[in-house]
Structures are given as C-alpha cells and as structure tokens.
C-alpha cells in the first residue's frame, strides 16, 4: 500500500488512541448481548402450539448478530487503517473513511513550519490523547491527526525527524559545494 523511496526508513507508525476504538466497540458489544437476552426471552414466550416460530426467532437473532459482527470489523478496519507513517524523509497520512473512501496525503519533513497539539476534555487529558496539527509550506496548509495517543511524544518525534532531515540536506549541500570548489 505504501511505497517507500529508495533509502527511506520508517521511523514510527502512529494510530488513534485505543480508548477511541473501545468507545466505538463497547456499545455494539453491549447491544449484541442485550439482543441475545431479548431473543432468548422471546423464544421462551412463544407458545408450544407455535413452536416452529422459535426457529424464525433464532434465525432473526443470528441475522442481527451477523450485522453486529460485520459492523464490529468495519470499525476495526477503519481504526487500523487510519495511520500516520513517519519516515526519515516525510510523513504519510492515511485516513480511511468507511470501507470505500480513503485519503492518502504526504508531506516532506522539511516543509513543516509548526506543530500544534489540542487536548480538550477530561478524558483525553486523563488518557493523554488529542489532535495533532502540522502546518506546512505547501498547497495543503495543515495536516490534522485526530485523537492520536501521546501527542506530545509524536510532536517531539516529528520535530526531531524534521530537524534531522534538514541537517542532512544542509550537509549534502555543503558537501556538494566543497566538491565543486
């Protein structure tokens, strides 16, 4: 999916905080358990002379469980395919939107102008996740990574990689200038 350039090394891979995934999954799991409970209750309420209807109720429960199962893994796929890949040359930002839409952006580390972190709310503060906004000198001015875990560490890694990339570019220019002389 991602083609690295020659000599490019991946430094880190960042995803949204796990609590965000849990907040999306827990309601589905709870609702599935409630559905199973209601289904068994409904099957118990079917009179004996209508016993064949129990198979219909059971089939209905299985169908709804299957919907929840697929929805669960769509949420997982959406979570695991939202990533920021930090290499020693650029950042590749992949945002999966549902199953049939995704946005892939990239920006060179040398184009980063500033990095901003937003941590709003009690739970993001307690669990240390928030939005990271990287402003660049390009047509697409800012890149936002939402709900990333340990945003301060990500910011530090980004700035460190950007500084290292600029220093290596300057060193290459200086070396070329010396060779020319």
């Amino acid at each position, binding site marked *: *999916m*991602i083609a690295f350039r020659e000599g490019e090394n991946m430094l880190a*891979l960042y995803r949204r905080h796990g609590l965000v995934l849990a907040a999306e999954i827990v309601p589905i799991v709870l609702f599935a358990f409630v559905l199973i409970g209601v289904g068994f209750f409904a099957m118990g309420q079917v009179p004996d002379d*209508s016993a*064949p*209807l129990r*198979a*219909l109720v*059971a*089939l209905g429960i*299985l*169908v709804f*469980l*299957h*919907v929840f*199962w*697929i929805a669960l*893994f*769509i949420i*997982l*796929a959406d979570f*695991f*395919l939202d*990533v920021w*890949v930090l290499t020693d040359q650029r950042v590749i930002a992949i945002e*999966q939107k549902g*199953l049939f839409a995704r946005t892939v952006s990239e920006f060179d580390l040398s184009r980063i102008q500033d990095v901003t972190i937003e941590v709003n709310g009690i739970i993001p503060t307690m669990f240390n996740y928030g939005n990271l906004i990287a402003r660049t000198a390009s047509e697409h001015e800012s890149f936002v990574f939402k709900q990333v875990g340990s945003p301060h560490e990500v910011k530090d890694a980004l700035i460190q990689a950007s500084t290292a990339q600029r220093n290596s570019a300057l060193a290459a220019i200086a070396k070329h200038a010396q060779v020319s002389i």
Partner: protein
Amino acid sequence: MAQVIFFIFAGALALFLISSVVVLFHFLHYRLQKDKHRMMILAFCVGSLALFFLELSMLSGADWDAIGEIVNERLFENSL
C-alpha cells in the same frame, strides 16, 4: 408467505457474504503491520463462518410450511 420470509433471509445471507468478503479484502490488502492483523483476520473469518453455518442450518432445518401456516393464521386471519 413462508417463501417470502425464506427468500428475505437468504438474501440477507448473500449480503452478509459480500460484506464479509469486502471486510476481509480490506484487512488483507491494506495491512501495514501484517503480524498484528493476522489474529483479527482469523477471528473475523472464524466468527463469520460460524454464523453462516448456524444461519444455513436454521434456514434449511426450519419447517417453513408450518411457519407459513402459523403466520397466516395468527397475523392475517386473526387480524381480519
């Protein structure tokens, strides 16, 4: 009536099969860290196959004629 219910459930199963293939494709094609996704792919396949097996068992094992009679008798004739 029984046939209508049967085809509705059969259509739902076909839709689930297509959805499962799409989800599986996403996990297989877009993996960035293959090792970490292996268990998720396995869990999804096992769960989906188990649900499909149970649904097909219920679909083929149900007495659809009796269900149709009960539905007609309870829902339509009694309501009239």
